[in-house]
């Protein structure tokens, strides 16, 4: 189908917490071309402060109902306007955008690592793995117990382990300190979250020669490769994180 821009109807805007929301959208065309790790560019109407679109990952896709979900956190004006949308409202999107995770084969030992709202692109990845018969381990890090969301959804896709910075649930500390990484030797790690988290996962993977893909959240103006604002510094020079990413193989990044 290729990239397209469309007004989609909101089926539900689920308030998980004062900060976290899930928007479910009714697809227009077939969504068969959606890949895990890809994102959409959302037009935020009614806000003088949001001139540009806002990039949000594809969280979950229901190919039968032909719907998909966006999982987001209020970060500023744009996401705050999104949080107030209601079922029946429409949302203008450009989609699907960007590269996707390389979905692992059945017998690879895989860990998905997500931090905060960075867990977003991993659920769809997990589900795509399940279809190939692979059940990943999933390590999710949150600031504290109040910020833990959507864990049940992830449990459907794999075996979930938790960390919180304050130790209120799961192991205490950052994801890279989790005992899992000492116990298990993974073939592949897929990661999305705050940059500091991704960088420490990356250095763990480098040290242990583990295949690793990360999803960057660089600032974007267009989202489809024409403004060159979203570049990541890679071994092949500056590459756009909206078309050559957001998913990059660690080997390509100068981390």
């Amino acid at each position, binding site marked *: 189908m290729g*990239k397209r821009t469309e007004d989609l109807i909101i089926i539900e805007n689920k308030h998980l917490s004062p900060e976290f929301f899930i928007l479910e959208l009714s697809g227009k065309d077939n969504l068969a071309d959606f890949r895990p790790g890809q994102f959409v560019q959302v037009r935020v109407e009614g806000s003088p402060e949001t001139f540009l679109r806002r990039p949000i990952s594809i969280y979950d896709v229901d190919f039968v109902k032909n719907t998909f979900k966006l999982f987001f956190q209020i970060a500023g004006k744009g996401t705050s306007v999104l949080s107030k949308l209601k079922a029946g409202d429409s949302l203008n999107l450009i989609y699907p955008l960007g590269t996707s995770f390389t979905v692992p084969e059945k017998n690879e030992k895989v860990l998905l690592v997500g931090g905060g709202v960075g867990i977003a692109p991993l659920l769809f990845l997990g589900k795509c793995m399940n279809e190939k018969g692979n059940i990943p381990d999933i390590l999710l890090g949150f600031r504290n117990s109040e910020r833990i969301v959507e864990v049940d959804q992830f449990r459907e896709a794999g075996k979930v382990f938790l960390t919180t910075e304050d130790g209120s649930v799961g192991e205490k500390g950052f994801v890279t300190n989790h005992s899992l990484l000492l116990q298990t030797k993974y073939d592949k790690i897929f990661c999305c979250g705050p940059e500091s988290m991704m960088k420490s996962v990356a250095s763990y993977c480098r040290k242990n020669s583990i295949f690793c893909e990360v999803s960057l959240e660089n*600032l974007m103006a267009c989202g489809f490769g024409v*403004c060159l604002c979203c*570049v990541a510094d890679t071994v092949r020079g500056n590459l756009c994180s909206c078309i050559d990413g957001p998913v990059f193989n660690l080997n390509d990044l100068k981390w």
Partner: protein
Amino acid sequence: MVNLGFSIGDLYFKNPVLTASGTFGNGTEFDDFFDVSRLGGILLKGTTLENREGNPYPRMAETPSGMLNSVGLQNKGIDYFESEIYPKVKNYDTNVIVNINGSYIDDYVSLAERINSLENIPAAELNISCPNVKMGGMAFGTNPVSAREVIREVRKVYRKKLIVKLSPNVTSIIEFARIAEDEGADSVSLINTLLGMAIDVSKMKPSLATITGGLSGPAVKPVALRMVWQVANAVKIPVIGMGGIMTATDALEFMLAGASAVQVGTASFIDPQASVKILEGIENFMIQKGITDIGEIVGFINRKSV
């Protein structure tokens, strides 16, 4: 039917809606969204002789009704352009124009020579107004002596239509437009971005790695429009207006002020189909007002005692 065509010298454009360099990639990125050949012309991203990596990230900051960028002319150079990009764009049924850039006059000249020999590139836009490079760029476009020199030297070698893109970061843009006309430019385009800046207060540091960047989008429209009006009243060559055009109404403002054509820039980031919607909007306006020739609109406010 309404007549939307206009010409720069003997180069005909089927309609006055072009795209602005650096905001339309190589055109091909828009193939998914609409038929690029419907536009009057497309301006490809800024090209230099050699490969350039541009400035460090972050290169973008959102501002009220606008954005700052400090891309800094990232591109793969003219060799790559010839071998990889030109073959893909040369068959668009529209005027495909290259935006040429350099650090030294010789760079511009060499580049102009290379572009000159590309059959399906009927015009070049000489960018002497990029605010995001350390050498060349805006330094040429804000100094009358060097502006004249670079235009003169390029004109000597470049035999197709030469459009000079002016910087708004000057006391008198009329002065520079006249220099371009004097030196044989076929057209002037304006405005490039206004030099601006933003600070991330929570982090207490500049939003851009380069501190300053170029401001574009609706925020600059009143300034751009004023400059286009000034220039259109000062030179005889066709003026191509741009700066914050988001809608057909915006485009018509520029044409009423004297622009023969417009370029759509930042708008394409927000709506990839912005340019073609603007084209349709202009057509509708003409039908509604019973105007049959776009030429009647160009400079209308300067002709009538309004």
